[in-house]
């Protein structure tokens, strides 16, 4: 295959990139010559991959994540690695060890997170597409805050092999771009079975977006417009749903009662899994080396204390606690019950409706430093985490502005109906464009 080189010299005034590849090579294919930014928790052979953490500074993976291999084979050029909340833990990209990313729409505000660097790189026009990851909203939130499109695929539809795990049972790699067609195009390259990921399914995605949504039934859960959701945001999203009705869709009021416990369950599960996943960062094999003059446990303590940021340490401690003997039944096991209830609610709703719509985020992008209290930051995930607990696909598409800042319309679908949520987003996008 012919190998070409492109020049990539973005004006990165938003700190979207942690690492820029100035002269990336590319081959032929569907994505030939397209510069694609890759979130820094996705392994890229020969390119430093840090998860925006000091503990992985200097780590250069010897292998490509499955999704990265696929986009390279499709001719894409890897433009660089994008900033994020450390290990994906955050909703603002302020938790990066290498400084926050700024929102291109208003540099006084956060781009959302944790895939804030990918969203900002796309929003600012530095790249046409980016790969993000979504554990509790990490693709959809920054897409909404930066005014771009982001798809969180069905769990198992895109291989996680090479995605540096934060919360394995919740997270997935997904596409981000300025428009739905590009998101769909990138999805068509990265979806499909990978035998190295035992949780991946043989459900490839080869779809061309269609704007026809005649007769579509849309569920409108009251929880997505209730307490905690900014009323201006709610109003913009309701208008957008009105647009879908004009296109022939029908709306059905509904409720997701399990949402009451969804956020708590989400934080128990993700911190539990994280406490185990992040235990391997010990300075023995990669990253800043442990001090070999000390005993191994003292050296581990040093490496981990110095290497992890405060939010990561907080979540490791929370998860370690939740899994401890005597507490497992109280927290982890209960969280699994709550998760099952979310799944059941979705399954029940999806017998009556084809998709569920609501705002992606309860507010517009916050100001830098605004959410200094971790709990208030966690609460902003309330509308995105049910999707991860349910393993279902969801897309965020720009649907208007509040105070000059973008608002995202979130469209959730049945498992493996990623095509349908793409179509609904596409229908909306085409309708407002014309």
């Amino acid at each position, binding site marked *: 295959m012919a190998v070409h080189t492109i020049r990539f010299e973005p004006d990165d005034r938003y700190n979207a990139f942690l690492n820029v590849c100035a002269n990336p090579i590319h081959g032929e294919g569907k994505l030939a010559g397209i510069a694609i930014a890759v979130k820094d928790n996705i392994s890229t052979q020969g390119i430093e991959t840090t998860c925006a953490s000091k503990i992985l500074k200097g780590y250069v993976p010897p292998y490509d994540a499955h999704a990265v291999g696929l986009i390279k084979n499709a001719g894409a050029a890897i433009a660089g690695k994008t900033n994020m909340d450390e290990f994906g833990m955050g909703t603002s990209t302020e938790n990066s060890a290498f400084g926050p990313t700024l929102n291109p729409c208003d540099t006084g505000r956060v781009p959302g997170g944790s895939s804030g660097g990918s969203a900002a790189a796309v929003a600012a026009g530095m790249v046409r597409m980016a790969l993000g990851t979504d554990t509790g909203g990490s693709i959809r939130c920054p897409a909404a805050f930066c005014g771009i499109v982001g798809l969180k695929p069905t769990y198992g539809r895109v291989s996680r092999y090479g995605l*540096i795990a934060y919360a394995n049972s919740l997270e997935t790699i997904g596409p981000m771009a300025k428009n739905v067609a590009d998101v769909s195009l990138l999805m068509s390259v990265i979806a499909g079975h990978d035998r190295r990921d035992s949780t991946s399914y043989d459900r490839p995605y080869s779809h061309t977006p269609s704007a026809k949504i005649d007769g579509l039934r849309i569920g409108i859960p009251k929880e997505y417009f209730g307490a905690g959701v900014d009323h201006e945001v709610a109003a913009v999203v309701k208008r957008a749903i009105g647009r879908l009705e004009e296109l022939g869709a029908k709306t059905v009021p509904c409720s997701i009662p399990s949402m009451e416990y969804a956020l708590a369950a989400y934080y128990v599960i993700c911190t539990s899994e994280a406490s*185990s996943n992040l235990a*391997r960062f010990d300075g023995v*094999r990669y990253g800043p080396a442990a001090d070999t003059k000390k005993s191994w446990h003292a050296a581990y303590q040093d490496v981990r204390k110095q290497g992890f940021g405060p939010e990561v340490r907080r979540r490791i401690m929370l998860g370690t606690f939740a899994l401890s003997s005597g507490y497992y039944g109280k927290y982890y096991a209960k969280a699994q019950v709550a998760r099952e209830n979310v799944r059941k609610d979705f399954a029940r709703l999806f017998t009556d409706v084809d998709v569920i719509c609501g705002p992606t985020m309860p507010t517009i992008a916050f100001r830098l430093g605004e959410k200094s209290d971790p709990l208030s930051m966690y609460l902003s995930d309330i509308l995105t985490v049910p999707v991860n607990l349910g393993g279902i696909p969801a897309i965020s598409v720009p649907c208007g502005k509040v105070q000059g800042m973008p608002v995202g319309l979130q469209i959730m679908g049945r498992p493996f109906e990623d095509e349908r949520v793409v179509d609904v987003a596409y229908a909306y996008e085409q309708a407002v464009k014309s």
Partner: protein
Amino acid sequence: MIDADIIVGLEVHCQLDTKSKLFCGCSTDYRDDGPNTHVCPVCLGLPGTMPALNRRAIEYAMRVAKALNCTVIPESEFSRKNYFYPDLDKAYQITQYDKPLAEGGYVEIEGDDGKERKIPLTRIHVEEDPGRLVHMGNAERGRYSLVDYNRAGIPLIEIVSEPEMRSPKEARKFLNKLRATLEYLGVFDSEKEGSLRVDANISLRGSERVEIKNITSYKGVEKGLTFEVTRQKNLIRRGLTVERETRHYLEARGITQSARSKELENDYRYFPEPDLRPLRVQSWVKDIVLPELPDARRERFVAQYSCSLNHARTLTGELKMANFFEAVVADDYKGICSLAATWIADTLAGELNYRDMGIDAVDPQQFGGLLVLLKSGTITDKSGIEVLRVMLDEQLKGETVEAPETIVARLNLAKTAGDDGALLAAVKEVITGNPKAVEDYRAGKNGALNFLVGQTMKKTRGRADPGELNRIMVAALRDAEQ
């Protein structure tokens, strides 16, 4: 104190002899290679890697489950056992916790009372082996340690027994039987270094339970437990209490030593491995065709070759020995099979053990040739042993092993016939040369005849038939008197 007061349970970890590791494609054949040469991103636990289950390992474990009459669980799952240690690449071990592959079952052994007994099993599960630390210097004062991940990810099967063994000897028998069964199933190679690790629980009735960790040899299990029995009995005799604790077995010294208490404080925080799907493999059980297992083969040896029960037990206790026996008697078993049983189970096993050789070093046809010489009366048992030793030493030195007939001819070991003048001459020489012994014999001292016979044997280098020599000696002494 009688043995019924000893309660022993074992947790046996065996490496499954698959070609590739449990969760990646790396080769398991690492023993002759340098450190960290059989590794990949997965078994190094590099960030972002995921386990992909080797179904062959599960199939192997299910053969074991079926052979040991266990119940395979409809849906089992893998869990993470979280703890920090430099040899543990991911800082968790993927193992099975509350949903193991199989439960129940038993191992049948000959109890200390000579009766067959079923030792019940608790469970069988599959897990990955961690890497290995190499301490430069000793563990306490070494300057540093190096980590070798070649072993990381080798599939292990853990077999947990109920505490139903009554002595260290029974524990050894349990282990031997288990080894034989796993070898017959073709899933385990006991000769590979480090392929077996045992944790043993032992308590004296009424006292606390002590766990002995990390015994790595078959003998070590019996030795370590015997040491513990003595230690615990001594404590009780002195009015002290046995503490509930974990102890390490020190192979070189054959003793156990208290583990630092810190190691007991681990909270492993088990939870289901989110990167693997639950295992639903119960339906495979019916498709597993088991080979002939040790018990069945033992009974067949008794029936088909008229072996004694003890010989049959020894011969079938190791797959290679059983195969060797059948290869030796293959041609004309009616002729030599009883000789073969004795010579293989007793003589050959001892000689091999002495030389630290495996039985596969011996050519069954040559060995059969030796038995034919014994059977036909061409050589005596004593000469037979000498021929065997020559054969084994030649093998050990890497020389061409001579045919038994050649060795007999070269060393002039053919049995001396009774009418052979040479034998009579030797007898006469001994009588002449040992007047004191002859005198003692005539005085009725019992040992004197044995001494004279022994001296003659020495002269003829064991070629004489002992019964015949005895007769000739008595006659010669009578002649000499007249």
